[in-house]
Each structure stands twice: as structure tokens, then as C-alpha cells.
């Protein structure tokens, strides 16, 4: 027994060393991954002059440089606060509408029989990968005709339309998993499709709806291209407002760093709060 474990000792020591090595490598990678965001955060807490002259890492030797004045200036300006509210007014309706419209459609695709159902669904799946670039010019023209170009509803509708294929795909697959007996029992009790949808399918579909809602929220909150084309300066979200400052990156760092940090803090909080749903949504429906 002793001889046996003695023979294994070198191998164990080796595996212990390699384990320690893996730990160190992963620790290095984790720091490497955190550093850029930390840099942004620290830069947002330093005055413009400090940022122009030295790198953010100098705060570790001179903590006195830290100040919240950038944030105070940014939030008292009014323009940024307005764009923050625009982001909310775009993101919340776009998320709710996608969830509602997609779950209605997903229910029909999963549980209502109608001719050509599978073909229509395949077309929707096909639309998953359509790049939004292809719709920019035609929809800009369409919005011009009906007079919602540059408005928040225009931006919202665009986000809803391009969120639908993924949303329908995700929810339909989930709804298919609901036991048929549950739906039939409800039907025997005399419930119509609408009642079944609200009383049975929506409550049971909560996990998938949560994943979808978080995804859609993040996409819309983080979008730049759609608002770049369809929003004007009154309806622009934070991303577009900040993008306008990028031209003078060095000179505007006192606006860009705190602005970017404020714009990322909400999705980050959502991400940490609902991490499980986020990952589940990812697993359920990649390839978009």
C-alpha cells in the first residue's frame, strides 16, 4: 500500500503543479478581462486634465485624483439625462411588445392547426439571420411616408420587427413542450384560445419569456445602428448621444467615460440579476 502511494506521489505532485499553473493562468485571464472596464470606470472618475496628462492607473499612487465632477457635469447638462429617458422609452416598449406579439404568434405556431403552418414558421426561422442593414433604406423611406421618421415609435417598431423571428422561434419551441393534456383539459372546461393563452400558456412559459425579455432588453438598450438611422436629436438614446461625442475622443473623455459607464451599468445589473435566464436563452436559441 505504501509502495503504491509512493509510486503515485510524483504523478500527484505533477498534477498539483499543473493545477496551480491553471489557477494562475485563469487568474491572469480574469484580471485581463476586468482591466478594460475598470479602466473606463477609473477614467470616468478623473478630471479631464488628469485624463489628458496621465493614464488612469496613476490613481493607485494618487487616489486624491478621484472626483465625481464628471458625473455631476454630465447629469446637470440635461442633454444626457434626456437621452437616458429616451433609452428607457425605447427599450421598455420594444421589450414588452416583442414578448406579447411573439408569444401570441408562438402559441399559434405551436398549438393552433391551420393550413401552411409549418411553411410559415420555416419562413420566420429563415428571417432569423436577415441583417438589419437590408431594411435601413426601405424602412427610412416608409417611415418618411407615414411620418414617424425620427420618432421614438419608429425606433421601437423597428426593434420589435427585428426581434420577432428570434422571439417566435424561442417561444414556439418552449410552448411545444407544454403537455398537451393541460391544454385539452382547459379546452374541455370550455376555455377559448385566448383564455388558454393567458391562463395556461403564458404562466407556464414564464422561464422562456424571462430569457427572451432579458435578451431583447439588452439588444435594444445596447443598439446603436437603428437609432443612428431612425432617431433624431430629440428621440436619440444614450448610445447615439455618446457616439456624437466620439469625433473628439481625447477632448470629450470627461463626457464619454462617465456616459459610457452609466449606459453600461443598467444592462450589467440586469445581467447579474438574471444571469441564469440570460444563459438559458443563449443555449436555447443561438445562431442569429
Amino acid at each position, binding site marked *: 500500500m505504501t509502495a503504491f502511494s509512493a509510486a503515485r506521489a510524483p504523478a500527484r505532485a505533477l498534477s498539483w503543479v499543473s493545477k496551480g499553473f491553471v489557477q494562475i493562468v485563469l487568474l491572469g485571464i480574469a484580471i485581463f478581462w476586468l482591466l478594460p472596464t475598470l479602466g473606463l470606470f477609473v477614467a470616468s472618475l478623473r478630471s479631464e486634465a488628469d485624463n489628458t496628462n496621465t*493614464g488612469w492607473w496613476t490613481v493607485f499612487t494618487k487616489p486624491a485624483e478621484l472626483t465625481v465632477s464628471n458625473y455631476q457635469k454630465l447629469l446637470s447638462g440635461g442633454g444626457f439625462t434626456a437621452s437616458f429617458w429616451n433609452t428607457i422609452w425605447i427599450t421598455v416598449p420594444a421589450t414588452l411588445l416583442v414578448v406579447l*406579439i411573439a408569444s401570441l404568434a408562438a402559441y399559434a405556431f405551436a398549438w393552433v392547426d391551420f393550413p401552411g403552418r409549418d411553411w410559415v414558421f420555416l419562413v420566420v426561422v429563415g428571417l432569423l439571420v436577415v441583417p438589419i442593414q437590408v431594411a*435601413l433604406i426601405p424602412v427610412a423611406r416608409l417611415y418618411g411616408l407615414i411620418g414617424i421618421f425620427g420618432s421614438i415609435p419608429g425606433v421601437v417598431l423597428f426593434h420589435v420587427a427585428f426581434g420577432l423571428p428570434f422571439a417566435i422561434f424561442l417561444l414556439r419551441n418552449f410552448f411545444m413542450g407544454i403537455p398537451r393534456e393541460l391544454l385539452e383539459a382547459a379546452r374541455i372546461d370550455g376555455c377559448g384560445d385566448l383564455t388558454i393563452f393567458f391562463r395556461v400558456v403564458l404562466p407556464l412559459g414564464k422561464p422562456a419569456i424571462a430569457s427572451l425579455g432579458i435578451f431583447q432588453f439588452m439588444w435594444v438598450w445596447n443598439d446603436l445602428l437603428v437609432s443612428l438611422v431612425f432617431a433624431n436629436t430629440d428621440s436619440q438614446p444614450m448610445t447615439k448621444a455618446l457616439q456624437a461625442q*466620439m469625433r473628439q475622443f481625447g477632448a470629450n473623455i470627461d463626457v464619454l467615460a462617465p456616459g459610457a459607464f452609466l449606459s453600461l451599468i443598467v444592462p450589467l445589473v440586469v445581467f447579474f440579476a438574471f444571469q441564469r435566464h440570460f444563459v438559458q436563452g443563449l443555449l436555447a436559441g443561438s445562431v442569429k
Partner: protein
Amino acid sequence: MALGFLLPALALLGALVVYPIVFSAYRSMFDASGNTFVGAHNYTRIFTDADSRTAMRNTLIWVVVAPSLVTVLGLIFAVLTERIRWASAFKMIVFMPMAVSFLASGVIFRLVYEGDPHRGVINAVLTTVHDTFSSSSVYPGAIARPGSPLTPAPGNAFVTTTGIQPGHMVLLPLVGLPAAQLPKSATQAVPAPAPPPDGISGTVWLDFTRGGGGVQNHVDPAEKGLPGIRVQAVQAGKAVASTTTGPDGTFAFTKLPAGTYTLKLPGGNFAAPYQGVTWLGPSLITPAIIGAYIWIWAGFAMVLIAAGLAAIPRDVLEAARMDGASEWHLFRRITVPLLAPVLTVVFVTLVINVLKVFDLVFIIAPGSVQPQATVLALEMWRVSFGGGADQGAGSAMAIFLCLLVSPAIFFNLRRFRQEQ
């Protein structure tokens, strides 16, 4: 009944997704004004116009480089995290950038890639490492005093214009250096003592008297020597001897063979300090942005692959281990083949995503470098909205982009069929 449930979705998809595809295809056959039919001209333009060719080339680089790097990195992370206790913390950290907008990531990486080593973190690290291993020059920006025996030579060096015979003393005045920048060891410059018959001596000093006064090309009081400058005695293009100046700027060669020499102050004395790498310049911009992309998407690949890894039956691995297979062998022969479907999904997702990459390039590439950094998705916007105002060409580019991603539709449909 079904129609009622489907109507809102189908109406929106029809008006804002399907109709635009049809309209773009139609619009792509007209010129910028939209009135003149030009047939396939806009499409041939994509392949001939310089800007859109750059965009195509960059998109190709992106597709070839980014998805495979991200997938491999995700695989490595997923496998390695199986061996640590804090795997979920690690995954959270690496996955976090996925929640951040491309705009914020762009701002983050503009800070990272900032060229000035005092501000950009990568260049700060690079210059620190560089200066640790090779000392940077002490006298960047020095110039020869006009009328002195020195003249600039290639590579920041200075040489004497006239030949010097052994037995002579030479004065080598330099200017253009801030007095505050001189090393602390520098002392009052003095003319070097006359050399022996087989030697050459001289003084290298800062020929500038603060507050005026002083005679040019003459060692005046209150002028300091330049210590630590390498001086070479060159004969027939070959350095035959070399020495270094002292605190008072003097140097001396001895035991030189007879002949005529020129003195050279090599460029190493005056080279500008190492400034790191110009990440945001035209040549490195695409790799730099791909770096930021990897930072964002590695977590996505890692999470998906880790889920696939968790689904691999443990007993298969255990059985192979019992048979004495090495870890590397297990990885190559069992883990990777069993992960193949997941790896394919990750890879295809990333290819589609890379084809559409817009924000990151738009934000990280400074305006002046955008023509070199542009990709198809960005070029489409630039041509039709960002100053180009040619919606015919823009539509053609959008349709072209659609065609590029369309194989993924069949991939999706096949996968969907299999799941049924």
C-alpha cells in the same frame, strides 16, 4: 382564429423585414437618384470601387480570423474552468462584456489602445517592458550647431564633415536639448586636453548659454558637457574605435593607427524614445478591433461550450482514463469530437455575427482611419447615410450582405428539422 394570433407578428415582419428585402433588391438596380435604371452596375461597383473593396477585404479578414479565434479561446476557457473551484466567478467575469454595448466597449478600447504611452494601457506596458530591456536614449531631438564640424547622418546619427588626423582636438557642439533634460551627472563643459600624437580628443557639449551670451561653437562658462554619449572613430566606413564622453563632455581615443578619421555620434544617442505601437493607425486598426471583439464574444463561446461539456457522459471519460489515456488524448479523441455539434453552432453563429459587425468598427476606428477599417456592414451605412448618400449602391451592398449570410438559413433549417 389563428390569424388573430399571428396578425400582429406577420404584419410587422411583412412591412419591416420582408418588404424591405424586396424593395432593397429593386432599389439596388437604380442609381443614387433612384430614377435611372442601371441594372447590375451597383453590384459590379462593389467589386471595383476602392472603398468597398477594402470593406470586402476586411470582412474577409474578420470572417477568417475572428470566429475561429473566439471558438478556440472559448473551448480553452471552458475546458480549463472545469479544473478550478471558482469556475462560476471566472465565467461571470469573462461573460460580462456580452452585456455591455458595443458603444461602451468601443469607448473602453479606445482608452486601451490610446497611442500615447502615458494614457493607453497597452502602450504603457509595452514601453515599460521595452525600456527595462533596452535603455532609451538620453538626448532625443538634439541638433548640430550650424557651423560646427557635425552634420546629420542617416539614422539620427551625426558625423564630422572633415577628416581628422590623430593628434588633434575637436569640439562637437549640439543644441536643441532642454537644459532641464540633461542628466544630473553633467558638469561644466571643458575643452578636452590635447591628445597624444596617436590619439584624438574632443568635447561634446550643449552649446547654449542660458539667458543669452556665449560664443557659438566655443565652450563658454555655464555650458554643460553631455555625458554618456558614444563616439566612434570611423575609417573607410568602418568604426575602428569607440568611447564614451565623461561628465564634462570630454572623450579621448588613443593608439589610433595613422590615417584620416571621421568621428561619428551613433543614432542610438539621439533616437526618439520608444512610443509603443500605433494601434489605431491604418495598418493595425483591423487586428486591434478584432481584439476588442474577442474580448466581448469569448464569454459567449465559453458558456455554450461549457454547457456542451457538461452534457458529455462522465463514464465515457472515466472509462478512457482507466484504460490509461492521457488528458490530451482524452481531449483530442473524446471531448472535441463529442463537442463538434456545439462547436459548429458557436462557429456559425459567430460567422454570421462577424458579417454584420458594425458598431465596434464604427466606434473604435477614429474618423480618419475609417476608410481603412471599414467592413461591409459599416460601408453600407457610410455609402447610404454617412455622407455617401447613394442609396442605390447602399441597397446593393445590403443585398450582397444578405446573400453572404443566407447559407446560415439552411444551416438553421437543418438544425431545426433535426430537433423536431
